[in-house]
């Protein structure tokens, strides 16, 4: 009789537990958070070829990369926000590693977001979701499926003269998820965990303020959330062990009971505005 652990691995190998990649590819052109230009900016992902089987290194190919901690699909640690700055184990290098594995409740609001790009998640919406799918358990990730990852970059960033217009949580629901449901963290497909216009909320950026203030985590720029069941997926999300790191790009994987997951949908290829496809 195999141990539970080996049984799990066997089932992954057999495909009865499916591994869903929730990660966007790290590319140079993927949008990063935009702040007023007089403030410090997150470095976008950049790649410089060190050698490619050439005079710089005849038998090997490798790159140097530069990237901000909050670029691409990334993890937010509590130390990222001022409300979490003094908590114990609040940076990516000190978070207990067991925290990097947790189940998820996936709240599908893709239909609402298609109708309203400024859809706001509220407590009644989540309560209605719980009636259909069961109560959000303590220690679970709450992932917001908006299908935002399927949009063109321009629509994804949703920028106008008034800033970003993207869906996200209202302040009350974030506090409620932390205080009433004791969640593990909050994850989104959008550039940040917060609503596009969250700078005008009280407090500003509540998903950062409340989650990190109570030592909870964030995941953003996720994709393939449409392949997860409302309940039962297990998320593997281990950030890079950066000394005093506030977050990091990472590979986010979900383990899904095959019977429980919706079939993978054919993904529409991403429109890139005026950009041409990368040839390499």
């Amino acid at each position: 009789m195999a141990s539970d652990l080996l049984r799990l691995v066997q089932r992954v190998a057999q495909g009865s537990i499916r591994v869903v990649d929730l990660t966007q590819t790290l590319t140079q052109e993927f949008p990063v958070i935009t702040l007023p230009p007089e403030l410090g900016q997150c470095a976008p992902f950049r790649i410089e070829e060190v050698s490619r089987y050439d005079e710089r290194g005849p038998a090997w190919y490798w790159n140097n990369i530069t990237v901000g901690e909050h670029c691409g699909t990334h993890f937010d640690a509590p130390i990222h926000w001022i409300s979490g700055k003094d908590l114990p184990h609040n940076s990516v290098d000190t978070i207990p590693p067991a925290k990097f594995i947790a189940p998820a409740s996936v709240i599908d609001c893709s239909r609402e977001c298609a109708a309203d790009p400024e859809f706001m998640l509220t407590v009644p919406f989540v309560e209605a979701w719980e009636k259909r799918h069961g109560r959000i358990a303590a220690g679970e990730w709450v992932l917001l499926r908006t299908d935002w990852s399927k949009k063109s970059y321009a629509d994804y960033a949703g920028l106008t003269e008034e800033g970003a217009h993207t869906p996200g949580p209202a302040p009350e629901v974030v506090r409620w998820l932390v205080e009433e449901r004791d969640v593990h963290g909050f994850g989104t497909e959008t550039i940040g965990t917060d609503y596009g216009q969250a700078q005008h909320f009280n407090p500003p950026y509540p998903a950062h303020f409340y989650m990190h203030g109570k030592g909870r985590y964030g995941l953003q720029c996720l994709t393939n959330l449409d392949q997860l069941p409302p309940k039962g997926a297990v998320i593997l999300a281990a950030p890079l062990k950066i000394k005093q790191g506030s977050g990091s790009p990472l590979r986010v994987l979900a383990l899904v009971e095959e019977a429980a997951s919706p079939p993978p949908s054919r993904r529409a290829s991403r429109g890139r505005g005026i950009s041409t496809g990368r040839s390499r």
Partner: protein
Amino acid sequence: MTEPLARPKRKNPLRRTRQPLLPQSVRSRTAHGLTAAAAQGRFELQRCVDCAAVFYPPRDACPRCLSPRVPFVPVDDRGTLAVETTIHASTDPYFRERMPWRVGLVRLDCGPVVLAHLHGDAREGDRVRLDLKLDKGGAPVLVALPAKDTPHMTDDRQLREMTCDPKFRRVLITDGRNSVGQAMAKAFSDAGAAIVFVGVADAWKPFAGQEMLRKLAGVEIVPLDLTDTESVTELAEQNGARTDIIVNTAEHVRPGGILQRHGLTVAREEMDVRYFGLMRLAQAFGPAMRSRGADGVNSATAFVNLLSVYALMNWPAYGAYSATEAACLSAAQCLRAELRPGGVKVLNVFFGPLDTEWFQTVPPPKVAPEALARAVVQALQRGLEDVFVGDIAEEVRARLSVNPKALERELAG
């Protein structure tokens, strides 16, 4: 009268692209006094301090009184074309390909008789203006122009060998998101460029002027981010063989000196956009441009760097920015040497504060983006290498030549 330049035919893909050749370019150290004047578009010859004789070619002593005090000074450029001849045969590889070639002797009103290349509208016996130009190899030469401008005179075949006129050429403006890039796109469109490629990074971020840019004749928006090596390389893969002029309009202006920077994040961005951006652009486009310096009417001809005049002397109020600009100037000098074998000029355009958002708190005089764009087009039409635009840039140049230390102290405030 000059025959107006015809729009060049499409290139015959069965024919080899002519490799660039250069005219003989060796000059004495003293003769580089002419190089300095030609690079900036001034007409200067040596005039003896002791006997006031004006003479040419350059010498280390006055041919009349042997005085060693013979500085280059601005002199009257007018004269009479005494005699002309048309050369039909030459052993020089550069001129062999460009026969026939007209030269003549001009008696300058200020004294000397000089041998000069002739504009097509300058005929024997005519009154002419002399101009100092840099030839394909970057060496100073004299050109006799008609006394008054004639129609289409910039289209003259011999003159075009010494200029970088955008007419019918394909231009790449590297950053169309800012007002300088947009003014530049308009100026090159108006100057008759065949295509004006305008780079736009992060197309998902809206920007002011986007609609105006799209409406300009000949403008084609292309994705380009100078901080992304792959983006630059990809554009060069597509357009490198049809880019004749590059104008690097990517800017990164932030106030503050070294101590105000509080870490290196902004400093790295400055260097990435400006210095590394220049290197990426040069590495991706430079080799093809250098090999296309003799590729017909729309040959590759110029790489334009827009540089703060504070590249020449640090202005601590914008001190880290000045330091980055100094790095760019040094790289531009290197690039100039590297592109010269292809007959491609590097034009460095210096200016003081621009009338743009990042110089909002700086009092006038400031350079309007449109004025800068006009100056760039004119400098290319004249074939210049170093241009100072606006009062502040002119003043910095003048004061550097007199007392750089005083300038350093006074810029410190």
